[in-house]
């Protein structure tokens, strides 16, 4: 390594200033078919589930709301300077990867779990994790259960599909028996659980907390057990083979996390002046070439925060009213997994 370092220093010394100047030009030549297509179209085609509270669900006005929806908006704000320049493409889980592979969408934020086989086999690439989720358990408090290990012989309500497999894996590995009670629809499942048809409601944490929130005063009668038995890093995905677009989607998310870490919010984003810290100045595009490196305007990160907000604001907007704990989605400095990768 010392040898290489020496060479590097020499090269750096020779090209120092020119490299700085030409960095923007060099990366701007990097062609991104997706970026070009998005600019030509004037909107980002974003694949979402469209039926899941907290991630992507139309509100009473038909406006898509949720973490996934806002992550798409962040990409649109960064690329086009307009967070509303998003075309929503609602997809059922089976269509998600196809829609991305065929170019029907530019970016996929559809509660897609980042798994190895999805990246190795499907021609897609995970850009960033906008929500760390995991399967959890909700039980009636009256059941008197404090841990999932006490659930031997329970009737377990869950949604058909991957949830079944998770349940079977867990109960088998714990040497416990259980009776699955399966439903196609969340609404039916929740009604059955409230009616006492099963002892446990087993689904993603994010769904458990919104369900508990919907119970109002009755929420106290139900307990979320501490165990989280599967890792579900829900991530934004792009097609492989377009590295610049991958970077844009990845750093649109990282910019939101950095903004929270730096204390930049939608409200105060315009109050930072020349006296701000170098990190903030770089972030807001007053210094450096972060935007150019992505082929974007220097105000890209500013536009994300001004129009969509930082990560914490986004989380608060969609999950705040549920009274839930941010858990793994806290900033790294608060013990969570949302890490502000340095933007420099």
């Amino acid at each position, binding site marked *: 390594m010392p040898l290489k370092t020496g060479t590097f220093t020499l090269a750096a010394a020779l090209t120092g200033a020119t490299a700085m100047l030409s960095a923007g030009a060099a990366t701007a030549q990097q062609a991104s078919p997706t970026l070009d297509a998005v600019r030509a179209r004037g909107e980002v085609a974003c694949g979402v589930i469209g039926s899941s509270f907290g991630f992507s669900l139309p509100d*009473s006005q038909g406006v898509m709301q949720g973490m996934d929806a806002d992550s798409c908006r962040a990409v649109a704000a960064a690329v086009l300077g307009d967070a509303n320049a998003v075309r929503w493409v609602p997809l059922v889980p089976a269509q998600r990867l196809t829609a991305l592979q065929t170019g029907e969408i530019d970016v996929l934020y559809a509660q897609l779990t980042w798994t190895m086989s999805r990246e190795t086999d499907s021609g897609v690439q995970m850009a960033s994790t906008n929500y760390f989720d995991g399967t959890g358990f909700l039980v009636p408090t009256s059941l008197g259960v404090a841990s999932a290990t006490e659930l031997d012989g329970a009737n377990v309500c869950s949604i058909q599909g991957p949830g079944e497999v998770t349940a079977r894996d867990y109960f088998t590995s714990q040497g416990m028996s259980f009776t699955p009670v399966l439903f196609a629809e969340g609404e039916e499942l929740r009604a059955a659980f409230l009616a006492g048809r099963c002892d446990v409601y087993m689904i993603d944490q994010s769904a458990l907390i919104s369900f508990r929130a919907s119970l109002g005063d009755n929420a106290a009668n139900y307990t979320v057990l501490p165990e989280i038995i599967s890792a579900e890093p829900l991530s934004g995905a792009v097609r492989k083979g377009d590295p610049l677009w991958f970077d844009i989607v990845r750093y649109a998310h990282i910019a939101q996390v950095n903004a929270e870490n730096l204390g930049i919010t939608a409200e105060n984003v315009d109050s930072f002046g020349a006296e701000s810290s170098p990190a903030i100045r770089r972030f807001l595009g007053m210094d450096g070439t972060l935007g150019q490196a992505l082929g974007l305007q220097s105000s890209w990160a500013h536009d994300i925060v001004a129009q969509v907000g930082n990560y914490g604001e986004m989380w608060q907007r969609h999950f705040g009213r549920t009274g839930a704990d941010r858990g793994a989605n806290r900033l790294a400095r608060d013990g969570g997994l949302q890490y502000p990768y340095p933007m420099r």
Partner: protein
Amino acid sequence: MTRFLAQTEAAARPAPDRRRGLRQILAEDFFYAPGATVWTLVLVVLLGLAAWTLFDWAVLNAVFGPTGTLDASQACRAEGAEGACWAVIGDKVRLILFGLYPFDLQWRPGLACLLMIALYALSVQKALWRPALGVIWALVLAAVLVLMRGGVAGLAPVGDDQWGGLPVTLILSTFGLGLAFPVAIALALARQQRRFPMLQAASVGLIEFARAVPLVVVLFMASVMMPLFLPESWQVSKLLRVLIAFTLFGAAYLAEVIRGGLQAIPSGQYEAASALSLTYAQTMRDVILPQALRIVIPGIVNVFIGFFKATAIVVVVGIFDLMTAAKRAVADPLWQGFGIEVYLFAGLIYFVFCFSLSRFSARLERDLARDRS
């Protein structure tokens, strides 16, 4: 032999009076014997209880909006709120009816729905059954497309992946069946004729394929597999792919119904047409089809009703039809648990459309029976 013959002449009875009074109907149909009286009373009590319970739930105890200091959702969940929560409909009605369509532009899908309903109302008038009706259909459907898509005449463009709710249900059934109808006639004629065996085989193949494969599988193939085989520049929108699948299916089912009508035409009709030296096209257009289609109107309406309801299946490919949009309304934690109200509302809309169609079909059967007698 005499024991088989009446010995006396029976007195002539007056023709039964068809117009009976309420008292007579009750006495003759409901209380004509002690057993009937008991059953009538038991059922009246049961039905009365059911009706009262429903009324109590749906009206007396129902929550229609915010009460006092509580907002609508809290009012529905408040202690003692045992009735229906119609406030969820109040809050979500535009989402259920129009899905993701931009809120400020929702007058356009609204108008499009009214246009299509008016089109149905026109189409069921027998007096208007003439070629001009086809032109009206083409014009109205074009107007519907312009309203929904925009992009001309100063209307902001709205992509079809933003369409949702009732217009999508109506568009899929109207366009699907409107396009399927001519295709179905062609398929039925192709299957009926004997002169071109290949044409016949193709028609049989298509019809039998569509009838043998579940629609949901075809929709899934159309939305998940088909795009993988098409070049990237050939982007066919999801709604259009689904519409094509619907059209093919509708055409196959309708073709069989129409073929039934063709078979019911006595061969004398064909022979008479031949004797007049009418060509095949003339025979079909002026002699056979008008009679055949008339006969199978109830069957056609049946297919229409079935397909109208089957549109809800598009949920499997992520299209926001009426039923899907209704489900989205109760995914919101504010309204989770009020699925019954929302499903009833959606069900009522389906009922209004399907029941009108079925009444129309019944009226038509009566009219045609009168024509024949």
